[in-house]
C-alpha cells in the first residue's frame, strides 16, 4: 500500500462488514461476482432484494448502478445486466445483494477529522439520504469529540436532542454513534459515513456506508485489502514509494516537494502548457528510485520532461546521476529534457550534467518557459506578465 497516494477508500460491502463487526445493524446480504450467485443469495434471503454495484464512485444510484428484484429469477437477470457494466469508467465486477429495506425515514451520521480543531467531529442530520453537502446548515448537527475521553453518552443525547429525534429511535441512534466512534478510532479511519441510516419497522439500519482509511496506518491493519485502483504507471511509481498523480497535459514533471511540484504545474499552465503528471521525488528519495521514476515518465510519451529540483534533503548530484543515466540509456528516445537544478550539492550536480552534455537552468522561470514552449505552450505567459522581476 502506498502512503503517498489517495486515501484508502473501502467498498460498501467492506464498510458494512466492518460496521457489523462493531455491532452496527446492516441489511442481511452478501457480495457476489456472478448472476448465479446473485440468484442463490436472493433465494436464501427469501424476499425482494436490492442489487448494488460495488464501485468507488459517487452517484452510483443515478447512474443506474442499483436495481431491485422481487424474486431470485429477477435478481439473476438484474445481476447479469449490472455485472460488466461501467459506472463513471469503472467496471462493475462485484454486487452486494441485500434484503430490500422498506424505509420510513432517512437519517445521516458521519465522522471526520477536523483539521482546525485537530480532532474527530461528528456530523448528524435528520435529513439523510442525500449528499450531506446539500443539506441546509440548520439541519446539520455537529459535535466535537475529545480523543482523550472519547464520546460520552451525554454528547450523544445532545446530538439526538438537537436533531429533533426522540424515544426508541434516539436511543438506537445513540448506540450506533457510540459504535461508529469506536470503529473510527479502532480502524484508523479518516472518514466514515452512514447515509442513509434508515429507519425501518425493525429499527435503524445502515443502508449505505462509506469508510476511508488512513494509508499511513495501513501497517496496523494488515487485514484491510488494498483497494487502490491504479493504472500500470501509477502502480509502478507507487511501488517506488513516490507520490504520483496523472494529469492531462503534455509536459512530464519530476520535482521535489509537494508544494514545489504544484507550483511547477501552475507555472506551466501560466505559460499556456499543462503538466502531464504530478510526481514528487522529495523526502530524500534514492538515486535508483529517481532513475526508475524518470524512465517510467519517459514511457508515458510526453512532449518534454521537466525536472525541477531545489535540493534540501534531495541532493543535486544524485538527481544529476539519475538524469545522466536515463539520458545515456536511450530511454528518452529523443524526448527533450529541461532541467532546473539548485540547492544541496548543486555544483557537483551541474558538473555531472555538463559532462553528459545536458545544460541546467538556475531559475525556475527560464526552465518552465522552455518546457512550456516544447509542450505546446506560448512561452510568453497566458496573460503576458510572465517575466516580472527576473
Amino acid at each position, binding site marked *: 500500500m502506498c502512503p503517498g497516494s489517495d486515501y484508502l477508500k473501502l467498498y460498501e460491502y467492506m464498510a458494512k462488514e466492518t460496521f457489523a463487526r462493531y455491532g452496527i445493524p446492516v441489511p442481511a446480504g452478501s457480495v457476489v461476482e456472478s448472476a448465479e450467485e446473485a440468484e442463490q443469495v436472493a433465494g436464501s434471503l427469501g424476499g425482494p432484494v436490492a442489487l448494488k454495484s460495488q464501485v468507488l464512485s459517487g452517484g452510483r444510484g443515478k447512474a443506474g448502478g442499483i436495481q431491485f428484484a422481487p424474486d431470485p429469477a429477477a435478481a439473476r437477470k438484474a445481476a447479469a445486466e449490472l455485472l460488466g457494466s461501467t459506472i463513471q469508467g469503472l467496471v462493475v465486477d462485484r454486487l452486494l445483494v441485500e434484503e430490500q429495506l422498506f424505509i420510513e425515514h432517512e437519517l445521516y451520521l458521519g465522522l471526520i*477529522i477536523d483539521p482546525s480543531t485537530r*480532532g474527530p467531529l461528528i456530523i448528524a442530520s435528520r435529513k439523510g439520504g442525500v449528499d450531506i453537502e446539500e443539506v441546509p446548515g440548520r439541519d446539520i448537527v455537529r459535535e466535537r469529540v475529545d480523543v482523550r475521553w472519547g464520546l460520552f453518552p451525554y454528547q450523544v443525547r445532545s446530538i439526538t436532542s438537537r436533531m429533533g429525534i426522540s424515544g426508541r429511535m434516539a436511543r438506537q441512534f445513540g448506540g450506533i454513534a457510540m459504535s461508529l466512534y469506536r470503529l473510527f478510532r479502532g480502524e484508523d479511519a479518516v472518514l466514515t459515513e452512514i447515509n442513509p441510516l434508515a429507519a425501518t419497522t425493525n429499527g435503524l439500519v445502515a443502508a449505505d456506508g462509506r469508510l476511508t482509511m488512513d494509508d499511513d496506518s495501513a501497517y496496523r491493519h494488515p487485514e484491510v485489502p488494498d483497494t487502490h485502483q491504479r493504472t500500470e504507471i501509477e502502480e509502478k511509481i507507487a511501488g517506488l514509494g513516490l507520490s504520483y498523480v496523472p494529469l492531462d497535459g503534455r509536459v512530464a514533471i519530476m520535482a521535489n516537494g509537494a508544494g*514545489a511540484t504544484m*507550483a511547477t*504545474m501552475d507555472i506551466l499552465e501560466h505559460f499556456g502548457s499543462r503538466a502531464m503528471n*504530478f510526481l514528487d521525488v522529495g523526502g530524500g528519495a534514492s538515486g535508483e528510485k529517481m532513475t526508475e521514476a524518470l524512465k517510467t515518465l519517459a514511457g508515458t510519451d510526453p512532449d518534454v520532461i521537466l525536472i525541477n529540483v531545489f535540493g534540501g534533503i534531495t541532493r543535486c548530484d544524485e538527481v544529476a546521476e539519475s538524469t545522466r543515466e536515463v539520458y545515456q540509456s536511450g530511454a528518452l528516445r529523443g524526448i527533450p529534457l529541461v532541467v532546473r537544478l539548485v540547492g544541496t550539492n548543486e555544483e557537483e550536480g551541474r558538473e555531472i550534467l555538463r559532462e553528459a552534455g545536458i545544460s541546467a537552468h538556475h531559475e525556475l522561470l527560464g526552465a518552465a518557459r522552455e518546457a512550456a514552449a516544447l509542450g505546446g505552450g506560448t512561452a510568453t505567459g497566458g496573460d503576458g506578465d510572465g517575466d516580472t*522581476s527576473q
Partner: protein
Amino acid sequence: MAILVNEKTKAMIQGITGRQGAFHATRMAGYGTRLVAGTSPGRAGAEVDGIPVYDTVEDCVTKHGANVSALMVPAPFVHDAAFEAIAAGIEILVIITEHVPVHDAMDIMAYAEDRDTRVIGPNTFGVIAPGQCKVGIMPERVYRRGPVGLVSRSGTLSYEIAAALGESEIGISTAVGIGGDMVVGEGFVDLLRAFEHDAETECVVLVGEIGGTAEEEAAEFIKTMTKPVVAYIAGKSAPPGRRMGHAGAIVERGRGTYEAKRAALDEGGARVADFPWDVPDLVASCLKD
C-alpha cells in the same frame, strides 16, 4: 529575537543515531545550534559527533536542560516518542517524521495541549532562526537573517522563496514549516500571532496550498494584524478530487480551492503573489511602507 527558537535554545534530537538523525545532528551543530544531547533507546553512553546519547528524553532534560526536541524516529514510533518528550517537559516539539498515523497525531496534539507543549509538524522541515538556531532539515545556506517571518506548509517551496528573498538581500527572522499533514500542531494563525508579537519581524510571508481551510482562517487573523503579510498559494492548476502529495492538498466538493483562498487572503489584506519569484518585490514594498 525570533519566534520559537533562538541562540539560547538547547536542542536535542530523538533518534540521533539513526541515518537521518545522525546526518542532521552534524548539520544542526555545524550551523551553531546548541545541540546538547540526543536519545536512542539502548544506546546510552554513545556519542554522535561528540554529542552525548541517552536512553531517555528525561536524561537530556535533567542533565543538559534540553527544551526543544527534533523528533526523527520512524513513523510507527512517533506516538511513543512524542508522549515521552511532552511528559519530560520539552517546550517545543518538532516532529520531522512523515507518514505519522493521523490518529496518533490527534493523540499527540491533545496531550501537548494539556502540558502546554508547542508542537511543530508532523511532516515538517522544522524551524530555523537564521544565524541563531536551526532545528530541522532545511538547507541552511538559503537563509539570511533579517526582518521577514516565513511560515509554510511546504518545505521545498519555502526554500525556494527563502532563496529568492536572499538573492534580493532580504533576510528572515524565523522560517517555520507547519507540516503537510491533515492534523498538525501549530497552525498558520498561531505562528502569525507569534510573528505579530516578535520584535525582529516586520513582515510575514505565508506559503500555503490548496485543500483545507487553514489559509482562510489565516486570512481572518491577518485582518487583526498590524504587520503586513505577503502570501503565495500553490495548486492553482490542480484538478479537483486528486490529492497532491500532502494529506490536505486536495480540492473536494468545491472546497479548499485556490480561488477561495486567494479571495479570502485578498479580503484579509494580504498581498498575494502570482509566482514564487514575485514574493521578494512584494516584501520589499511592504518593508518600505
